[in-house]
């Protein structure tokens, strides 16, 4: 069994007003060193796939077709073996 962790973030050139608002709030709290805040999504999937190459290909496919919108978002993922 694998556990897959997928991170989805708006592309660098896409304005993230949510991140900007949180950034402002952090500055108001006194965290002056904060430079930029980008807010995205974290998706966790478990899979019974046994072939790691197939798992990677499938996850990439899922990200491109459904889990992200490639027009505005980018993604990366990692996975680890877990006891089933």
């Amino acid at each position: 069994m694998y556990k897959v962790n997928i991170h989805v973030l708006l592309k660098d050139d896409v304005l993230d007003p949510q991140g900007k608002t949180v950034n402002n709030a952090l500055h108001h709290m006194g965290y002056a060193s904060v430079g930029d805040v980008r807010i995205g999504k974290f998706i966790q999937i478990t899979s019974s796939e046994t072939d790691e190459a197939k798992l990677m290909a499938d996850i990439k496919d899922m990200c491109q077709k459904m889990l992200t919108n490639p027009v505005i978002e980018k993604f990366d993922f990692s996975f680890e073996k877990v006891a089933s």
Partner: protein
Amino acid sequence: MKVGVVVFPGSNCDMDCVHAVQDELGHEAQTIWHDETSLPKGLDFVILPGGFSYGDYLRCGAIAKFARLMPAIIDFANAGGYVIGICNGFQILTESGLLPGALLRNKDQKFICKDIDLKVINNSTAFTRTYKKGQIITIPIAHGEGRYHIDNAGLKRLEDNDQIAFTYSGNNPNGSLHSIAGVFNEKKNVLGLMPHPERCNFRNRDSLRILDII
């Protein structure tokens, strides 16, 4: 004209669209449940209404694009059938690839519900033929995620092919790129727009004509 209004779980402007097309414009309208696998025979026009299909889970329109009815709608559009996506319908059309670009959270993070002024950019299409180029029409918007975005190459294609249907006139309410409020596909038989023409039954009736395509 025979019109089909698609109903997804979470659509909430479907009956407004039926009322506008049938009772105000005098066409024949029926609803189509998202779980059907084909469109009714002889349909001229498909409307994807506003609302929150599938609760806006994941992204607005992201789940609706996998509805069982969607392949039939894509075939209908590719064969030249007229399709309009209003608000959430616009988001579904961009997610499903029938229209270019994407819709993001409004620049000021707020849900905006008010009348705005819209400028007609391309008036040589079925949807916009009754307007003058540059005409300003008043129409309501009601969305939290209507900020149109497309990359530079995509924007150039939109401009070169006259695919920009409407822009916000004056104030850009949601931070859309180039104030874009509605776009066509290349063939101009598919239109997506954030504002709600079906809500123009009592006031601003000029804007209702966007739905009077034949």
